[in-house]
């Protein structure tokens, strides 16, 4: 078999074109990097603060996505109830919602005058302008990635193994812990990594909902947005950092996804 593996030439050509479309802008950006100043630019106080904040909040957001996304995926994939289709559409809404709109919605919920924010204010809890707000914004946009990825895998795996586990005496939680989750672990991992990547790049919702303060709420994308006003070199340099982190993260996800199929976890 040739390199193409049976794929028609015109299909491969279109694929190459598509890949080029994604790679060229990256290459164009890389050519604009001021290499002489690169290291000082990305190690400046504001850059480091932004990067560390981004990593911290994205990890927290990913953890939240897992904690809430796994049960959501399970319910959507396994349970059967009226309005399930609508619920699924709603859960996936953040995927199509412009992030800025998501930020506004979060503001209307958790802001000082928000639906829940009002009560929280009374209790002395303020979410606006805090790192918590950043994590909430990131979780909001990243959750569907995990839910989608996992729900698909849960459907594929089916319920037969779980039924066997039950007849062997395993209660529902044991089945979840020892059978269901291990079987869909590759999908869970790649979903979590996707969520992480999405959280890392989140901008619109954060900007609208959390504000922008170095060390507290100014994540890397926000820092880039600010830097482009005064120092395009910094903006480009930081963008490159973001791209590199994304590439590493996605590469890791792919690796984990394929090696996670040890012993044929999904057959």
């Amino acid at each position, binding site marked *: 078999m040739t390199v193409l593996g049976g794929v028609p030439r015109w299909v491969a050509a279109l694929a190459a074109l598509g890949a080029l479309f994604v790679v060229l802008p990256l290459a164009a950006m890389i050519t604009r990097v001021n290499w002489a100043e690169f290291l000082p630019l990305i190690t400046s106080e504001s850059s480091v603060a932004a990067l560390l904040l981004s990593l911290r909040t994205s990890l927290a957001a990913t953890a939240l996505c897992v904690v809430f996304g796994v049960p959501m995926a399970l319910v959507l994939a396994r349970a059967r109830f009226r309005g399930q289709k609508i619920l699924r559409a709603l859960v996936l809404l953040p995927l199509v919602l412009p992030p800025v709109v998501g930020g506004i919605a979060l503001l209307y919920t958790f802001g000082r005058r928000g639906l829940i924010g009002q009560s929280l204010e009374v209790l002395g809890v303020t979410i606006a*302008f805090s790192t918590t707000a950043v994590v909430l914004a990131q979780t909001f946009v990243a959750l569907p990635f995990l839910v989608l990825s996992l729900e698909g895998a849960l459907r594929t795996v089916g319920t037969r193994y779980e039924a066997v586990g039950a007849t062997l005496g395993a209660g529902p939680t044991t089945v979840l812990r020892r059978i269901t989750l291990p079987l869909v672990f590759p999908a869970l991992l790649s979903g979590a990594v996707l969520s992480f990547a999405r959280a890392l790049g989140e901008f619109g919702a954060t900007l609208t909902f*959390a*504000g*922008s*303060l170095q060390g507290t709420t100014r994540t890397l994308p926000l820092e880039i947005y*600010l830097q482009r*006003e*005064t120092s395009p070199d910094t903006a480009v340099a930081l963008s490159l950092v973001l791209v590199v982190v994304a590439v590493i993260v996605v590469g890791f996800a792919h690796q984990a996804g394929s090696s996670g199929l040890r012993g044929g976890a999904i057959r």
Partner: protein
Amino acid sequence: MKTTTASAALFLALGLALAGCASNAETAEPAEPSATTDALEGTITVFAAASLKGTFTELADDFEAANPGTTVELNFAGSSDLVTQITEGAPADVFASADEKNMAKVTDAALAEGEPVDFATNVLEIAVPPGNPAGIESFADLAGSDAKVVVCAPAVPCGAATAAVETATGVDITPVSEESSVTDVLGKVVSGEADAGLVYVTDVIAAGDAVEGIEFDESDEAVNTYPVVALKDSAAPDVAQAFVDYIASEAGQKVLADAGFGTP
């Protein structure tokens, strides 16, 4: 033959359509210099700072009314974003910046036609949500610990002005957020998230009942000057220059003054 006539007609129609759909810079006129001053014709694209949205929209309408045959297309964004677009070759005929720093980038790149003209000034004003929940009365009140104050980041013009006032007055504000645009600052005040924000006088006026404004004398310490210039390689240079002149004219200045801008 019928088909030849048909295809010729189709070709002609296509050609005319293409010419009509040509970019803003292209005009229906051939490239002969308009020797006479009567009947200005052409389309220009004006890149203007976001804070000029209301006023420039009105000025453009007035200009088009006074000069039938001209069309003014407007593109509003943050000044630095506009500079980036212009330097990367976006087709613009006129550039109006919110500060001199950004205008300098354009003149330094030798993209300006002639010298920039200062056409307006703007000073800062404190904006608070209706009812003034934090009881702000002066600039010094902003440094109070419980008030949630939002300002522009120093990297943007309104933030630079804020920093200048802070230095001049010796009052150091600890903001809860440093936004990248004055629109975002205003937004946080309007929604009630912030107790106070530092925005331009023009923003307070434009926001109407959504915010209350508190003027302060120290605002004179940081006056933002707005320059405008026609750009090189314009396809309708006379229209561009005419528009720049119009902004500086008495009629134009009145529109700006009504919106709260100061005189240059």
